[in-house]
């Protein structure tokens, strides 16, 4: 009986002793530190989704499983163009657990366009799709007790799922320390002591998880050297994590389970503790950090092309193409060029104002053709297309200074068009007849910086023997973006 009692007592004492070694010793009265703050360089939740069924090797458009219980992240919210996503590998010949891809575009809540085709090891339903987001934690705190050789500890919530708190996979209920891949540089890699900057040149250490009030926490400790003391009422800073290009940092959680709606933050507790040289907690303060989806802002500028025909500076007295237009110019409208009664043995000049603009890459082109030769509507007698003073065609301009013959042609006065097809001082051209002979009159091979404009100046001459009557033809302007 006595032996049983002694044995039970010994077991109880052993258990109590074992339990005490698992927890930091706490002073009889623990005070709080002042001005405790944890600022995250990135409060964005990590992404953890699953691939839907139906993927094929080589696909660049992949689809997420939209089931709300399929994965912590079940839509493309919180993914952005340029993000790197890791998709789980399976099957023989895969030496790495994941393959990385880069997001080229987000289609909708389910589809993502990646820059390279899906590998054969990734085309399985339920493959994890992970985009980790890490943060550098900048802790500031003001201890109220001055101690020598003390320790400052930062505790941040870890997952309650054993063995998953430092595997590089975002957890739904805590932060992850990252996977030990032999290097401390890069997104998802394990947080190491060289990623921690301690106050007062303390020595950093990253410990195993500790249970506080039944909740697991990662523990990061800065130990001051023997003889080095902190001051009371002085603010200190502890930095945990480095930019992925130079080190590692703690991985933010994925959306928590049972979360009500996207956009509502997940709140996690952190603790900052001040221990004396005997590792007894003298000061302890809790704080909260919030992680939430980042907001994707999108805006669309629609590509458009606009073409206009106007009458600016082409009325009576207007001066396009080095000319001064006469009284007949008063009748010019955007759709009508009425020469009226022609002056025999003289040039009859009228003009219109053309403008075009587009924001489509590759610019635009405007062409013109006549439906037929200028024709007497009663008899079909024509006024032929000009050959100027000899030598001008639908493609090549030439000067036109003689008006003894009946002719019809045009020239261009380029105001600010990107590419000059030809200018009026090079002469006149004949219109091409029919759509097959449409000729370019305005063009820009780049996106114009403003609406571009030109005058098209029409010239008609009638000889003394030209048949009397009403003549007409039609010009068709075509504006398109360059493909």
């Amino acid at each position: 009986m006595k032996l049983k009692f002694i044995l039970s007592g010994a077991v109880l004492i052993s258990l109590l002793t074992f339990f005490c070694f698992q927890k930091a010793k706490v002073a009889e009265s623990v005070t709080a530190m002042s001005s405790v703050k944890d600022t995250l360089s990135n409060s964005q939740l990590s992404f953890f989704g699953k691939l839907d069924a139906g993927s094929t090797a080589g696909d660049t458009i992949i689809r997420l499983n939209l089931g709300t219980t399929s994965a912590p992240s079940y839509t493309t919210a919180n993914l952005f163009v340029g993000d790197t996503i890791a998709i789980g590998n399976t099957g023989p010949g895969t030496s790495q657990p994941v393959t990385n891809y880069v997001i080229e575009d987000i289609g909708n809540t389910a589809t993502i366009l990646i820059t390279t085709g899906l590998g054969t090891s990734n085309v399985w339903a339920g493959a994890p799709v992970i985009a980790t987001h890490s943060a550098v934690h900048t802790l500031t705190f003001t201890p109220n007790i001055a101690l020598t050789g003390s320790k400052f500890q930062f505790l941040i919530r870890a997952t309650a799922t054993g063995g998953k708190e430092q595997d590089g996979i975002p957890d739904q209920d805590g932060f992850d320390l990252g996977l030990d891949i032999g290097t401390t540089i890069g997104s998802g890699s394990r947080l190491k002591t060289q990623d921690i900057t301690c106050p007062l040149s303390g020595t950093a250490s990253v410990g195993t998880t500790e249970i506080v009030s039944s909740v697991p926490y990662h523990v990061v400790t800065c130990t001051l050297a023997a003889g080095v003391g902190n001051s009371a009422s002085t603010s200190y800073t502890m930095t945990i994590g480095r930019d992925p290009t130079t080190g590692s940092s703690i991985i933010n959680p994925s959306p928590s389970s049972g979360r009500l709606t996207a956009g509502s933050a997940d709140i996690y507790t952190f603790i900052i503790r001040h221990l004396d040289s005997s590792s007894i907690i003298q000061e302890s303060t809790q704080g909260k950090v919030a992680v939430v989806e980042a907001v994707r802002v999108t805006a669309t500028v629609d590509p458009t092309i606009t073409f206009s025909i106007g009458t600016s500076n082409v009325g009576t007295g207007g001066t396009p193409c080095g000319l001064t237009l006469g009284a007949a110019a008063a009748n010019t409208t955007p759709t009508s060029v009425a020469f009226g009664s022609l002056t025999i043995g003289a040039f009859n000049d009228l003009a219109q104002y053309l403008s075009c603009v587009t924001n489509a890459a590759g610019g635009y082109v405007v062409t013109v053709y006549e439906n037929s030769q200028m024709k007497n509507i009663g008899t079909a007698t024509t006024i032929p297309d000009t050959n100027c003073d000899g030598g001008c065609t639908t493609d090549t301009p030439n000067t036109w200074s003689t008006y003894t013959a009946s002719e019809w042609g045009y020239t261009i006065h380029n105001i600010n068009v990107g590419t000059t097809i030809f200018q009026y001082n090079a002469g006149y051209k004949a219109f091409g007849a029919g759509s097959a002979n449409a000729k370019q009159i305005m063009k820009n091979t780049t996106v114009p910086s403003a609406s571009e404009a030109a005058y098209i100046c029409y010239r008609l001459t009638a000889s003394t023997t030209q048949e009397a009557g009403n003549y007409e033809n039609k010009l068709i302007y075509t504006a398109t973006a360059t493909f």
Partner: protein
Amino acid sequence: MFSISISPPLLELLIKPGATFIQTYFITNNSTTPINVSATIEAWQPSGPDGNVTYTNVQENPSFTFSLANSDLSLNKNFSLNPGQKQQLILKIKANQAILPGDSYYTLFITQASQTDASARLGSHLLISTSSTENITQKAAVTKLSISPIFKDIFLTPIRFDSLIDNQSNFFFKTQGKIIITKDNLTLKELELESLNVLAHHSRRLQCKNYTACTYTPPFWPGLYTATIKLDNSVSYTSPSVTFFIFPYFLTGLFIVLTTLIIFFAKFLGKKTESTA
């Protein structure tokens, strides 16, 4: 003022046989008066290597059917737009199940219905590739890679690269890549190509970023250089490399002239001294 807009001005799409694709266009009458217009579809082919098109003698692909899904509008039928009015056109493109894989090119025209002297039509191009799979085979060859000027000096003039790219496949692709200039196996310069569409079985003249000519500006070290065109996308292509030599022609010529002058004056002065003596 007559003014009309269409958006978008260019559509590129990949459609499966038997599928129907719907695209929304917006037509805006920017004029101060009402206008009557009609919507039509015309087939075209590229003309030349500079992005021009021709509508003449182009056979339409009978496997495509175009229609407007608007309840009150149809293709080839006039409708009116009031000043400032924006009209949505819903273009339905259907590809027959038996359509052969390949490209077809069209323009949706908004044509002013006018009996008067000058009328306008505004077009939006459609580049349609038909394939049962997303992974289409594209093949190209870079041809006529030429370098100017003939005499490449280390200081004086930029070196210009001109080239055509031939699309030897049934599907259009974009010219994404660069011209890589190397010397002694060291990359000295990469000129990034502008992304231009090269249509099926046609050629396109290459341009560099911002639609400019591809030029390599001096000064240069003298020596033997190599220029190669490298395409970034999944197009399978052949691309020749071109070597060219850069030499200090101007400095050498100047040196020769000066030396000649010095020798000439030295001889001239020497003769003069002799005669004086």
